[in-house]
């Protein structure tokens, strides 16, 4: 009898311990769990709502193609947002980068060189952006505004003064960037590199530290200027790479190329739980989960056939719910700046 009681007590103790561990795990990883649960909920909701059409092979391919540009850019911009930077030039820079590549390819430049041009243009824009910000002490959003106007201005000027529409004369040259396998591999590789750089390398850790408290970071030996420049250069490389996906998707350049992308990226990152003021809570997974959620949301709403006048409202409600769950941080978690 005594032995039985002891066994029951020990079972109860083990269960209580298990519950405590589970509860502490849930508390510790609350934001990450909500992030993935949010994605799963959107996936589940639209799978049921579309009677399984969401997960047909055709639509999965569609979703992967749609992810390419937004996902690549978002991974890059995590390095900018995590240190408290803000970039709204991404759409215009992508447009300029795509246009430069198209013009170069039409001029007979080898494909490999055209790819380098795409990366070069984008990296240059982001380099100028951050140099203006750090050298002149401007807010990064202001310098990115300037870059946005300049890049968009160049594209608009070139498009409006061209006799013919700017489009790839040999569209098949970009076939590699339309190849489903290549896109998928690229997304996986970019995601892994992003995760490694952001979670385990100095650049990620220092970016987050600057986002939390620049002064403390500097006093701890972090070179703020250098970290920010590297962050922007990484973003530039990925925006350049995304411009190739974008060019492959449309083969055409207009004054609207890349328009609105900056807002898509911000919404996707917020949906993924990234606090836009940066800091230690920034996660690379925000870009991965957020872009997937955003693309699924847009795709699902059209597939379901939600009335057009309701689309914004539905998006807004889902956005509010996710933001409320992910970004409402207890005061105790916010490190004083």
């Amino acid at each position: 009898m005594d032995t039985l009681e002891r066994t029951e007590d020990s079972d109860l103790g083990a269960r209580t311990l298990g519950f405590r561990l589970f509860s502490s795990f849930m508390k510790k990883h609350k934001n990450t769990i909500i992030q993935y649960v949010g994605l799963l909920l959107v996936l589940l909701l639209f799978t049921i709502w579309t009677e399984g059409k969401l997960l047909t092979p055709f639509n999965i391919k569609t979703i992967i193609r749609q992810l390419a540009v937004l996902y690549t850019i978002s991974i890059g911009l995590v390095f900018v947002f995590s240190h408290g930077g803000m970039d709204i030039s991404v759409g215009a820079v992508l447009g300029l980068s795509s246009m430069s590549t198209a013009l170069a390819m039409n001029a007979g430049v080898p494909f490999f060189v055209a790819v380098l041009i795409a990366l070069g243009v984008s990296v240059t824009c982001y380099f100028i952006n951050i140099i203006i910000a750090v050298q002149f002490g401007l807010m990064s959003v202001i310098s990115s505004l300037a870059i946005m106007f300049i890049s968009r201005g160049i594209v608009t000027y070139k498009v409006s003064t061209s006799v013919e529409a700017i489009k790839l004369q040999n569209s098949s040259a970009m076939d590699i960037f339309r190849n489903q396998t290549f896109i998928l591999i690229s997304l996986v590789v970019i995601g892994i590199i992003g995760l490694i750089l952001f979670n385990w390398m100095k650049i990620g850790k220092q970016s987050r530290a600057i986002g939390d408290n620049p002064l403390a970071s500097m006093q701890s030996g972090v070179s703020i200027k250098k970290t920010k420049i590297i962050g922007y250069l990484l973003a530039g490389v990925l925006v350049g790479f995304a411009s190739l996906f974008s060019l492959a998707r449309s083969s055409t350049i207009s004054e609207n190329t890349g328009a609105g992308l900056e807002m898509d990226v911000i919404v996707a990152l917020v949906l993924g739980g990234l606090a836009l003021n940066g800091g230690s809570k920034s996660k690379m997974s925000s870009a991965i989960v957020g872009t997937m959620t955003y693309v699924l949301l847009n795709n699902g709403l059209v597939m379901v056939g939600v009335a057009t006048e309701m689309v914004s409202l539905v998006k807004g409600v889902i956005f509010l719910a996710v933001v409320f769950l992910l970004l409402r941080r207890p005061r105790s978690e916010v490190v004083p700046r």
Partner: protein
Amino acid sequence: MKKNKWLPMFVTVVLLFTFVLAGCTGSNESSENNVNSSSANNEGKNATIGVMLYNYTDIQGKEIKSYCSYLEQNFNVTFKYATIGSSEEEHITGLENLLASGVDAVISGYDTALEESLNLADDAGVYYAVVLGEADENVKSDYFVGGIKQFGENPAVLGAVYAEQANQAGVKNVAITSFPAFAFLDAPVIIQGFSDKMAELDSAANVYEPEYHSFAPQDAIDAVTKIISDHGDVDAIFALGSGMDFVYPAVLNSTKSDIKVLALGYNDSTEAALENDSVLMAGTNNYSQIIANAFAQLYDRLNGHQYTDWKPNGRVNYATIKSVQDVADFKAYVIPEDKSQGSVTVDELKQEMLTYNDQATWEGLQKLTSRTISEIKKARQ
């Protein structure tokens, strides 16, 4: 503890709201299905057509949707709408989403990224039409049913019509505002037609060089300010870039609010503006004709028919409005609530569709969808 209580409450409210919205859509769908089943005796096969526009909230979007509803009630067809942005990426994404949802054909407002759009449509075996503009005739695809000329066969004629109205009103110094030619391809031809006719009607009239502006209301305000500062004697503006929405308010708020406006565009203030003579003429696309033209061709193709005299670009009438009476006619025959009294009725359309009439021709369809308001009025009486 307090927080713990209201967090689940908030989530519950949000989820409830979302499901209510889902329910709303579901009930719409079922009522649409009832409409379709009531017209199940139609000869054409059941089809779903996707529509892609920038928005469905302006008069163009609303009227296009309204005419599509009319078609849904009378043909075995359902329309599915996607709101797209102006960039190529957003256009392609919108198209991909519609294709993934299983549409049989797509009506795109615009010729954005036309070749890549057609590649996608080809791969999915889906017919594709461009309705708010002319399509590049060099672009070939078995699934492309073409574009639509918004300003008739010769846009210069429209410019001349505006010039005649300006001349009748006695204006002497006319400035021109327009969206850039790269975005509004017909603008230079319309402007040329206007200038030539003005010179022909009144050799003393001055037509100033066009002032091109971008796509925001502020750009139109800047253009109007520049015109007033450069040409103090200007007495009218031929406004090609959102004339009623952008340029007319800009003139009213300018330092020379007595400038008359000849507008390409129409909105709710047109009637009052014509009445008080601040607008001499307005005009807009005939939305029903646009959709009727594209729908007839798409539905025929889906039913295995193609016109032998088909051409890549069809045409519709550009409805011009010069008086309050014209506004009344426009409301009665172009944007009536009851589309069976409007520009293209179902019976008229069926007469020009091969699915219902094996004698139908593409040219016959173009004639039907390019009737002027007075011709439509005559047909209804």
